[in-house]
């Protein structure tokens, strides 16, 4: 993995509008750009740009339904990321218990 591919994820997560879009898609499921921009005060063009940024980072994807293009979370990748964190967390649990045994004895 080259640093140039790391940049999109870093950029994608560092913006309030994009985080709101992720939360909205997480709660309401696949949505069109029209629905995503409604009532946000952000233009369709800006939303589109944000979605493409999230898409480049592998966080969302789009599918065509009829004449509409719907955007949704890429749950599989998010889920893999979470499982990865769970593994590291378990590793820390083990290390912490070894530390306990080391200092308490």
């Amino acid at each position, binding site marked *: 993995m080259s640093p140039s591919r*790391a940049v999109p994820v870093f950029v994608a997560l560092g913006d309030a509008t994009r985080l709101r879009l992720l939360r909205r898609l997480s709660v309401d499921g696949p949505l069109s750009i029209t629905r995503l921009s409604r009532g946000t005060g952000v233009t369709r063009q800006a939303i589109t740009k944000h979605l493409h940024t999230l898409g480049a980072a592998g966080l969302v994807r789009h599918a065509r339904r009829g004449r509409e293009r719907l955007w949704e979370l890429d749950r599989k990748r998010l889920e893999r990321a979470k499982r990865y964190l769970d593994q590291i967390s378990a590793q820390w649990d083990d290390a912490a218990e070894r*530390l306990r045994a080391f200092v308490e004895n």
Partner: protein
Amino acid sequence: MSTDRIEKRMVLRALRSRVWRAISDAKEFGTWFRITLDGAFAEGKTVRGSHGHFKVEMLVERIEPERYFSYRWHPYPNDPKVDYSTEPMTLVEFTLEDAEGGGGTALTIVESGFDRIPLARRSEAFRMNDGGWAGQIKNLAAYVT
């Protein structure tokens, strides 16, 4: 749930000075962490460690005696053929306090910065088998039990 950080809190039945030594002395750290380190910890210094194929570089960031120790590293075992040195690192922090009610040390371990690591890589690391993350977990489990 945060995808950016892991936090562990525990109360150890040991003096703060004892816990501090176990964390800040590279030799003692290596004993319980199960890693062989090539030198002592000092602020701004890089200490290299290995355990079989598992290799790490710890960039020591801050040392406040008996209170706080932090370093940065690449959090997962990786492919020796790939240079990860320019990728984001996570920050590991150990914070020591006197346990409430006395007679013990409250230790908090935090590893943060996972959101900066490419998602694609996180899933890749998870998928890898031989010599990869899953393999390391298995090795680790074998040593622990």
